[in-house]
């Protein structure tokens, strides 16, 4: 094996990792943000909120991610008449897709909160949104931290699928270099190692939070 191919293309490949990080960042920011609201919508007593949210979640969770990506990259431009930047298409696809998974995690988190705790918040004059913002969301966030980190790791790995629409992230760049230099084992091995390191660190953080929660039993 000749690892000089990695060394020679290191900055190019790391540039790909940077795009992977950027995509992950926006996917998580949007996915978690939207997921908080989706979780609330799934518990809403208002049928105009509950049913559309539930249909959205069930629809997206039963479609492969790669099709969602294709849909936003190839189909949306046909409908809107404007071509899509692959990065923007990928961000939208990931936010819309991951929000359903984060939404279900938040829903489970909200359901751990007792009715009386919510009543206590209302009884001080807090509104639905204030109760959500200051009570429901922070408690669900803390209680569901291990699951949220696990889903974040999955999202990070999923971003590699954006290579199908030509986004030059880590996997895409590895394959570009491979096409020129034919060093599949080294290149894909390196890409896998990079993913492994990032995800392993993430899973250790998740484990830390899990143990912390068990030890303190605070929240």
């Amino acid at each position, binding site marked *: 094996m000749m690892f000089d191919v990695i060394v020679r293309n290191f900055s190019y490949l790391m540039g790909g990792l940077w795009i992977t990080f950027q995509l992950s960042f926006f996917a998580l920011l949007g996915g978690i943000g939207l997921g908080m609201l989706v979780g609330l919508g799934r518990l809403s007593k208002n049928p105009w909120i509950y049913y559309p949210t539930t249909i959205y979640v069930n629809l997206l969770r039963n479609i492969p991610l790669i099709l969602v990506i294709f849909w936003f990259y190839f189909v949306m431009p046909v409908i809107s008449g404007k071509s899509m930047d692959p990065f923007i298409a990928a961000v939208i696809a990931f936010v819309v897709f991951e929000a359903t998974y984060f939404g279900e995690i938040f829903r489970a988190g909200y359901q751990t909160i*007792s009715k*009386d*705790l919510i*009543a*206590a*918040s*209302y*009884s*001080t*004059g*807090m*509104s639905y949104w*204030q109760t959500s913002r*200051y*009570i429901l969301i*922070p*408690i669900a966030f*803390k209680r569901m931290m291990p699951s949220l980190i696990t889903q974040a790791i999955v999202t990070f790995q999923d971003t590699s699928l954006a290579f199908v629409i030509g986004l030059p992230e880590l996997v895409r760049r590895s394959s570009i270099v491979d096409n020129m230099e034919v060093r599949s084992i080294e290149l894909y091995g390196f890409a896998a190692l990079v993913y492994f390191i990032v995800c392993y660190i993430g899973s250790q953080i998740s484990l830390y939070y899990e143990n912390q929660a068990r030890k*303190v*039993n*605070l*929240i």
Partner: protein
Amino acid sequence: MIEIKNISKWFGDFQVLADVDETINKGKAVVICGPSGSGKSTLLRCVNGLEPFQKGEVLVDGISVGDPKTNLYKLREKIGMVFQRFELYPHMTAVENIMLAPMKVRGWSKDQARAKADELLKRVDMTERTESYPANLSGGQQQRIAIARSLAMEPSYMMFDEPTSALDPEMIKEVLEVMIELAKAGMTMLCVTHEMGFAKEVADEIIFMDEGRIVERGTYDNFFNNPQTDRAKTFLSQILD
């Protein structure tokens, strides 16, 4: 003044409140007692609109709770509520629990809310553990913080839903002392409790409920020494054991 006018409520086919009628005048303390499942807690929740009711009317300072046009959030600022299981926000310290609503609902500054919180912490005798999280406080301490949290909104009325039933005996007293002080300071109170010592000391009226109805009402002496119904007699003999 809280006017409960002949309200009835059903959960499906099951009637939880039946023609409950009661007026609580300013400065009065009313104690509600009765066996579990008699509708006491539900009654409190109807007063501040946490639970809807199907018949009758509740007026708080003349504002109708059941009217869909009423801003319930605004109305609830006037009515503090204390729960059996304290229900402190677990992710906030004691003092943060107290400061939240004044800051977010009233728009007070942090300093203003802190000053109010410090005053209330003194009042409920909790100046020591202000930065503790609820999980690190005893039940009695948590309940006193919960009372302070309600008082921080400067309510005109306070409702207590079995505030001492989840407490160990030695902690009941510290919570009751706070409640007695509150009643003596002129707070209008609606308390669901079986603490007859408390009722004796502060109650202007005792209501006895059974199966969703007010079965008996009267002063402490009246109710305690001369219960009219068999149901009340049985109940009293049980709780005095």
